[in-house]
């Protein structure tokens, strides 16, 4: 029987779940990756910079409680560092981003072996782009929070007698707030003089269309699972007439393991 929770009940459940749970299965995943990155930040340059990115991802996933096994909670961390160059190779930039997100998803059993989870997500992130060119605007800083949606589709199947799992995760921030300097504002004004000018902006899919996709194929090895997959991410914004994008295409590899926590 599926248990329907009102938003209020769900919130209560989220707060109380650590005490209600008696035995929870958790899955921890660690992935590392390398791939291509494309960066545009018109505060620094009108040109798109391209280069290499290294990524780290870790997540922990568990059911909300034994009573509400159809709900899962996942918290994730994404760390990225990219080194990108201008089209003419005359300048380079470092681009870094650190994201944390928390997702609550409800499960639907679609077909034999196929499950779909979907639900709300909250994320917070900070990052920078540092241009080696220098000057009074050598870098751009970012900090943002957002609420959005997250979904996972999982398909378990057998191939050559091996149980394999294909899993895709998509995250889309829908509404949030982000820091941005004004169009021609210098960081000297913001940080040295403390002159703030609407530097926190409301973000939504219209001015910050952002999406992340993580697809992995995993196979059991002993008590763990080996993952190999693809991560695509488009983190974008158009605030105060300043355009920004970071597009990632990354090959990810890593492992996950499950364990149970017993509580009295």
């Amino acid at each position, binding site marked *: 029987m599926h248990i329907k929770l009102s938003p209020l009940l769900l919130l209560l459940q989220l707060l109380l779940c650590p005490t209600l749970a008696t035995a929870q299965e958790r899955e921890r995943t660690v992935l590392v990756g390398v791939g291509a990155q494309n960066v545009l930040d018109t505060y620094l340059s009108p040109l*798109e910079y391209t280069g290499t990115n290294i990524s780290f991802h870790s997540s922990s996933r568990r059911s909300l409680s034994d009573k509400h096994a159809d709900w899962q909670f996942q918290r994730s961390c994404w760390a990225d560092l990219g080194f990108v160059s201008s089209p003419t190779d005359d300048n380079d930039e470092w681009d870094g981003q650190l994201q944390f997100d928390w997702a609550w998803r409800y499960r639907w059993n679609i077909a034999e072996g196929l499950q779909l989870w979907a639900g709300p997500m909250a994320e917070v992130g900070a990052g920078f782009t540092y241009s080696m060119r220098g000057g009074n*605007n050598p870098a751009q800083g970012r900090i943002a929070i957002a609420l959005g949606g997250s979904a996972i589709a999982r398909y378990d199947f057998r191939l050559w007698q091996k149980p394999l799992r294909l899993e895709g995760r998509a995250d889309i921030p829908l509404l949030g707030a982000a820091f941005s300097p*004004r169009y021609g504002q210098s960081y000297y004004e913001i940080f040295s003089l403390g002159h703030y000018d609407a530097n926190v902006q409301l973000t939504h899919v219209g001015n910050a269309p952002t999406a992340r996709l993580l697809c992995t194929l995993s196979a059991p090895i002993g008590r763990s699972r080996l993952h190999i997959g693809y991560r695509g991410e488009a983190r974008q914004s158009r605030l105060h007439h300043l355009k920004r994008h970071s597009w990632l295409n990354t090959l990810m590899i890593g492992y996950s393991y499950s364990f149970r926590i017993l509580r009295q």
Partner: protein
Amino acid sequence: MKHRLSLLILSLLLFTGCITEDVATDTRRGNFETLWQLFDERYCFFDYKAEEYGLDWRKVYEDYAVRVDEQMTEEQLFEVLSELCSELRDGHVNLVTPYGTSRYGAWFDDYPANYSDTLERCYLGRTEEYRSSGALKYKILPDNVGYVRCSSFENNFGDGTLHEMMRYLALCNGLILDIRNNGGGMLTAAEKLASLFVNEKTLAGYIMHKTGPAHAAFSAPEPLYVEPFEGLRWQKPVVVLVNRRTYSAANSFTMYLKGMPHVTILGDYTGGGSGMPLMSELPNGWSVRFSACPMLDRYGNHTELGIAPDVEADITSEDFQRSIDTLIETARTMLKQ
């Protein structure tokens, strides 16, 4: 309902899609168009310079567009774009290329130098005869007037450096602060040196920034204050020596001190340069520097084209031939009165 919401989100994502910037291709024409547009959207003195000397940026486009074709060499393109930059009459506007850095120099080339390092040596003496720390050189002249030569604001001053300098000069009757040929640097360094000469938090000017690509899209002017230096205030008369190469942060330093009761600005107009410069680049990789954040004096006036001295003076050729710096001597006379 859920399906409708999902469809709405999906359509918004598809509609907004990828955020990109339309940049011209790396051709002669493309680089010209990008440079002109970059200034058009981000340069901060169009309206002011239209009033001051009739700058018409649209006409500049028409005049220069016909001079650009795909057959010209890169060096010829550099020459044309350098001339285009010079139309802005701004020492903070530069094009940095393998063929050199374009720079506008009429703001000092067209005027007397009013500074000579040979004369500076006559007053400071040999290396062991004056004190020096970073961009500061100072000594006590025979008539008990302190002379401080500040050649740059490229690096900030340490508290200890300023404490020691002021302690050394404390018994002087007055101070000559020589910022001629000081091309600027860090505004924070200019603020710190100025902090020696205020007794309380003092309004020194205003700063603005562009809020959009339109020529007149500016934020409200935000006040700039100079805070007094911790535990140290110079109370005696000060004469600040300036010339046409007193520029950028040194121009701001002059702006901070001008009008203060015990301060006299002596020399020629300063060079100006009141727009804080930012950097960008062209499709061919050439760097562009341009003024982005204008600063105004405490009365709300632009100082981009220079600040008038309180007392005008030039180094005369007779004095120069006798190894006398007219400005220093005028300042000494003023401080004796």
